[in-house]
């Protein structure tokens, strides 16, 4: 058959596309359960991390998550009681510089201090805005005081702000826009948590 005839080209293109897409669909389907479980685990670990809990294994993490927070519906405010301390925990999403940032934030019952913050996913520039997922950045929120007008991100020295009374954290050097976006996201969440307390 003539390899340049229209019929051959159409049949070949259709057939090639069909075979490769079919194989991709098969691979995607085969790993779907694993991917869903990974996602569940990431969320569970973020919740546990925010309230300062560590789990030894992934099974343990999923079980601890159920015990502490019960059935979490999307981004609803969860009133949890961790080791006798009442607190508000909430998953959030907001607009970062390049895409959606999702994470978990926890405050005390009166929304006067942060318990912690964790980032689940983001699309910020790796090495710059992407550093919002690094520990030094997230740990700044542990025990940080929340003023009535919210929290501020400062242009810091590139390290972390260790003063938990000043209601300010250091933004990320070289990522002013991501830092500004995070400031808006966190302050919005503080408002939501205050309404729900």
């Amino acid at each position, binding site marked *: 058959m003539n*390899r*340049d005839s229209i019929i*051959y*080209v159409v049949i*070949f*293109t259709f057939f*090639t*596309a069909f075979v*490769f897409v079919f*194989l*991709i669909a098969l*691979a*995607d389907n085969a*790993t779907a359960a*694993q*991917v869903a479980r*990974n996602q569940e685990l*990431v969320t569970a670990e973020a919740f546990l991390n925010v309230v300062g809990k560590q789990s030894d294994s992934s099974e343990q993490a999923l079980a601890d998550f159920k015990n502490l927070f019960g059935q979490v519906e999307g981004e609803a405010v969860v009133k949890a009681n961790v080791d006798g301390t009442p607190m508000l925990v909430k998953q959030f999403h907001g607009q970062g510089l390049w895409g959606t940032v999702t994470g978990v934030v926890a405050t005390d019952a009166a929304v006067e201090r942060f318990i912690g913050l964790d980032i689940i*996913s983001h*699309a910020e520039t*790796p*090495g*710059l805005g992407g550093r919002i997922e690094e520990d030094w950045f997230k740990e700044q929120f542990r025990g940080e005081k929340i003023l009535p007008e919210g929290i501020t991100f400062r242009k810091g020295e*590139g390290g972390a702000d260790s003063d938990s009374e000043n209601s300010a954290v250091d933004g990320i*050097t*070289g990522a002013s826009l991501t830092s500004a976006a995070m400031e808006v996201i966190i302050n919005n969440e503080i408002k939501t948590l205050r309404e729900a307390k």
Partner: protein
Amino acid sequence: MNQMTDSPRTILKKNLWTDNPIFVQILGICSTLAVTNKLANTLIMTAAVIFVTGLSNITVSALKGLIPRKVRMIAQTIIIAFYVIIVDIVLRAYLPDISKALGPYVGLIITNCIIMGRAEAFAQANPPMLSLWDGLTSGAGYMGVLVIIAVVRELLGSGSLLGFQVFGPNFTNWTIMVMPPSAFFLLGALIWGAKTIMIKKEAA
């Protein structure tokens, strides 16, 4: 172009050095700038590229008798995209942390000019096993250059290597090193160095 007669050893030498995809052909520069600020990410990314160049080359070469000339580029793109998506799916299911760290760059392997270039320039005209070898070594040539840049950038930009602190807490990070322009400067310096050595060798 006498690629038809190249032996595996010549191909290896060409792809790693005299015809290196990055510092001689200047291909795949965008990913060089994007994924070299952390060594771990660079290693996984370049391993994925080696996998894709190798397998897309062998597939294109095996199918070359069937692919109509008019649509050969589209057919190559489908084959390349297929392997890239497979890599993406595997990373998402079994290495979720790394998949998260690489984000959109895995998908962007599809647009890496090296892969398309090898499929078009080599696999279309050579037998499958030789094409596989050509793809693997081209990817290795890409890996070598990226790893050198990533080591310098992570060391100076974050004071660490593969995430381990090397310089201690008093080291001031060179912020420029985590930003894409630094990869440009380093790549420029590297091309300069490599070319100087090559010219000296030729003269000798």
